């Protein structure tokens, strides 16, 4: 008896055998991955902007070096991920085009403004922290190139998270003004970070299929709960609080209960109406447009060189 390609494909997935670029795969699997990986890549690149905003104002040379290296790491993550997506038959330029025309999304968290230095700490701790929570399971995702890219990414993300927490720790032990700055940043970044896990499971249409294909291994709400549990403990080390009056340990469940998420805000930001959606996109578009002459020149020069070389050979 013979199996259909779909059955063989699902069988591999069930056996935890990685799917590689040349393997047969359902078109929808390919499309889902392109959407997810490119969205992830765009998030890395757009994510450079809010933190890039503070490189020039970092309060010490050491902090400046750490922040610059961090933002540069994010560019590297973008690069790995664009390369992984390219193995699925889409070019980087096509993905950029989707980003610049608003067809492709990126993580909504980067549509919030970075207003004080403490935001660099809060982003490292909460945003990179949430990213790790999302990304560690992706190291075992079923598509080989994506999984391998994530292994490299995750290593660096955990550095970022520790560095962010350390920024906050120093502030939390500083002057009253620094402590206030620290608490304020946590207040502003907490809920957007909780929203980073995406819509609640019952409102997440792709989850079931993605779980079956082992692109995803945990649901949004499972990961979100894990994140809240960890942060609720870590915030105590800072002597700060999370801005949620309903946050409370639930002995019976063995988890923290937490307050209702403002889904209206979530969907507004997704729809492009967050505080910085327009600036972020405009900055990326400008960088792309302003860079056209550089890319054109590089192409032209390479062609000239090749022609000269050919001439010499002939």
């Amino acid at each position, binding site marked *: 008896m013979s199996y259909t390609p779909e059955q063989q494909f699902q069988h591999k997935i069930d056996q935890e055998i990685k799917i590689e670029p040349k393997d047969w795969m359902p078109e929808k699997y390919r499309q889902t991955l392109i959407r997810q990986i490119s969205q992830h890549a765009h998030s890395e690149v757009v994510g*450079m902007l809010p933190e890039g905003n503070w490189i020039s104002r970092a309060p010490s040379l050491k902090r400046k070096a750490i922040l610059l290296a961090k933002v540069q790491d994010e560019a590297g993550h973008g690069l790995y991920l664009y390369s992984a997506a390219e193995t699925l038959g889409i070019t980087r330029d096509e993905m950029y085009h989707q980003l610049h025309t608003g067809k492709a999304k990126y993580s909504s968290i980067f549509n919030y403004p970075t207003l004080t230095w403490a935001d660099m700490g809060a982003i490292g701790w909460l945003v990179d922290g949430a990213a790790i929570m999302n990304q560690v399971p992706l190291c075992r995702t079923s598509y080989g190139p994506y999984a391998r890219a994530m292994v490299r990414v995750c290593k660096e993300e955990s550095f970022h998270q520790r560095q962010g927490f350390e920024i906050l720790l120093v502030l939390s032990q500083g002057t009253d003004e620094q402590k206030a700055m620290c608490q304020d940043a946590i207040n502003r970044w907490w809920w957007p970070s909780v929203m980073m896990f995406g819509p609640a499971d019952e409102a997440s249409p792709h989850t079931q299929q993605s779980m079956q294909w082992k692109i995803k291994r945990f649901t949004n709400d499972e990961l979100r709960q894990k994140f809240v549990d960890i942060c609720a403990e870590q915030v105590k080390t800072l002597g700060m609080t999370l801005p949620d009056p309903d946050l409370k340990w639930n002995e019976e469940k063995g988890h923290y209960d937490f307050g209702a998420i403002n889904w209206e805000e979530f969907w507004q930001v997704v729809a492009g109406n967050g505080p910085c959606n327009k600036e972020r996109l405009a900055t990326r578009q400008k*960088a792309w447009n302003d860079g056209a002459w550089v890319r054109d*020149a590089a192409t032209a020069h390479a062609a000239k060189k090749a022609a000269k070389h050919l001439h010499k050979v002939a």
Partner: protein
Amino acid sequence: MNIYWNQQWPAHIQYALFLADNALILAQQHSKWCGKGPILEQDIALSNIALDYLGQARNFYQLAAEELNQLEGVQFYTEDSLAYHRTDRNFVNLLLTELEQPNWGHCVLKTFLYSSFASLVFQKLMHIQAGELTAIAEKSNKELAYHKRWSQDWVIRLGDGTAESNTIMQQALNQIWPYAGECFIPANFETVFWQNHPSFFHELEKEWMDYLQTIFTEATLQLPAKQAWQTGGKQGIHTEQMGYVLAEMQYLQRTYPNSVW
């Protein structure tokens, strides 16, 4: 507490601060491009270069701070007090390093001019007995060789790319070129520092100019006609731009003095 430049400081300390200021201000200007480069790989490359300069600046500042503390029997010189608690009249970086970088051509050209100049200086430092300065030069020389290689390739690529890129690069070169000469016009502390090598600046100028000419020719770029060089950076007399560079860089340290970050 502000730190004021003191011409009585030993020449090698002034020289270390000169190299530190150059590297810091260049890193500061380059890092504003992080996330905005024309090609993701090149965005990473320029950030890398900025990180290298930042690292060099820190090494030189730490050295100067240690020596100044010893000399004056104080504790307040640190890499951060030197970077964050001087006004522009007390910075001695080359004007070249503080110039704005309105397009990628400026990023490439400034890197090209500074790294090719600095690698000649650092190679010379490696051949004399200048203690810690020599040690830092040894550490940094590899980085500079990479910056030089990277920027040289891009000068050629962009100069000899399209008609548009040639125009942009030529305009950038016209704007930046008047600031090149300051590199080989010695300030007092440099004359003292290199006093056992009286021909150093003359040789530097010759070797550097020959190299630049070769690359610009390959890039089909024209050196602007001879004109007076813009100078003053080494005496703390900067462009109007410099005040803004420092205002931005020093903002947190100035707003919240006596804080630990």
